[in-house]
């Protein structure tokens, strides 16, 4: 664990000093702020209208009408920016020659991968916490349900964690950061839209396509439904990404 933390600390430092990470986080915060402000404004207008029609009053819910769409919008931004955060992780080490330092040190490849992964997770977590801070006002002055908010946040975090695992994998396959980013983005987009094909599929394949879709599992969590299937899906995604990274690095050295 100490070795993982050594790598994680160094990676965190690189994230903080790297202009790419700063710009990426800043863009995410600005966009999230915009989403919160506009959804809030829309919800206020809606509240005034609903107040005059008691029939709809009970269906009027900030969790459903602000937080769920907010998490969805944020997840789309994550899809775009996570590849930019992860593209550097191994591609840069390979390009500048520092991988020889890492792989000739008494650290295991798994420790190096986990250190880098942990650092990126912490950046993601910090970014999500900062981005959702303004939502605190809703809790301060209103009474939204906490649990659906937390499951939504967890969903966003798990989705980001899965994106990072795939990003690390593609970063380990090349020394070109742009190539790594494009491959990550393309693959994530495919996992995002794969359930479009399930509309025309049936039986076993429909089940498979629905299960593989990233979005399908996210929907449940934003609705406040904490289903272990969804959590297991994201954790499997993470495991697979990291496992493939390990395999790529080992196979390159054995070739």
């Amino acid at each position, binding site marked *: 664990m100490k*070795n993982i933390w*050594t*790598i994680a600390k*160094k990676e965190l*430092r*690189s994230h903080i*000093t*790297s202009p790419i990470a700063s710009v990426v986080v800043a863009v995410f915060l600005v966009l999230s702020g915009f989403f919160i402000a506009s959804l809030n404004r829309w919800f206020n207008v809606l509240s005034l209208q609903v107040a005059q029609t008691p029939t709809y009053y009970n269906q009027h819910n900030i969790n459903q009408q602000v937080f769920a769409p907010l998490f969805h919008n944020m997840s789309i931004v994550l899809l775009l920016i996570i590849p930019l955060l992860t593209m550097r992780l191994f591609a840069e080490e390979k390009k*500048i*020659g*520092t*991988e*020889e*330092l*890492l*792989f*000739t*040190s*008494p*650290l295991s490849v798994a420790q190096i991968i986990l250190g880098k992964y942990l650092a990126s997770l912490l950046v993601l977590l910090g970014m999500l916490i900062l981005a959702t801070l303004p939502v605190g006002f809703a809790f301060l002055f209103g009474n939204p349900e906490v649990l659906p908010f937390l499951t939504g946040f967890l969903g966003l975090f798990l989705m980001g964690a899965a994106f990072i695992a795939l990003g690390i994998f593609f970063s380990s396959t090349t020394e070109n950061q742009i190539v790594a980013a494009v491959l990550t983005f393309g693959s994530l987009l495919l996992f995002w839209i794969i359930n479009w094909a399930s509309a025309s599929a049936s039986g076993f394949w429909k089940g498979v396509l629905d299960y593989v879709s990233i979005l399908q599992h996210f929907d449940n969590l934003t609705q406040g439904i904490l289903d272990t299937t969804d959590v297991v899906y994201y954790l499997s995604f993470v495991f697979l990404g990291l496992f493939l990274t390990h395999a790529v690095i080992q196979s390159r*050295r*054995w*070739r």
Partner: protein
Amino acid sequence: MIAVSGLTKKYGELVAVRDLSFRVEQGKIWGLLGPNAAGKTTTMRILTGFLPATEGTASVGGLDIFEKPNEVKRILGYLPEILPLYPDMTVSEYLAFVAAVKQVPSPRRREAVEKSVRTTGLDTVKGRLIRNISRGYKQRVGIAQALIHDPQVIILDEPTIGLDPAQIIEIRSLIKSLRGERTIILSTHILAEVTQTCDGVVIINEGRLMASGSLEELTAAVRTSDGAILRVRRDSAAAAERLRSVPGVDAVSPAEDGLRLEWKPGLDPRDEIVRRCLDGGFGVLEMRPLALNIEDLYLRIVTGGTEQ
């Protein structure tokens, strides 16, 4: 200290290192010499655990590098050909990171960083970002990271490449200052580096071992005659004629800076040569042994294909 036996590395069809065997004794500086693409870097990468070998065994400090890679990595310092530096770190931050990665216990890390900074003369730049220091200092940082955990064995891949002459001299004297305490292998294709820095040499070409041993041993092995270069004060053509009749002298030929005299190993007709020069009134400005230099040695071994 370092023993390599039957080491072979194949990249698909390409054989980078072929059945390589050599030994380096403790406390010595040994050169791994060969032309570009001879297999030097591959050999070093295998010894450091960066690459696995296809066949063969190797041990460092008595530890098998394939069975106990982590133990070997703890006693081994490595400077790769491409300096493994993070440009956005300061020299001190970088060395502290390497110390942690090399598992120097945390209470001793600060001391380890200071010691390697002192040894490699980095005091004036230790607070600067690596991206902003000169090539010579970057090379020193590379060597400092290889020394940080006080390794018993140091492997340096082309340690003076890309440096200016003054920096080359500095780095060579730094490497020489490490002699005795540590066993060092350095790779180079610069012949002078071997004569000026190393106790012995392993010469490889196209992945094969061509020769290995101390410089004296190798020179003796390929030498077929002894001789001297003689500079006379006047009339060297006539002097050459007179010296041909000296007993034991096989050949006298004009050389770039005097006369080249050769005789069979074991004979030493130098007294008689000087006497005849003085008696004949040619005078003597200089006589120096015709040492087989490293260039001759290298060319004979590599281009002649002589396996020793």
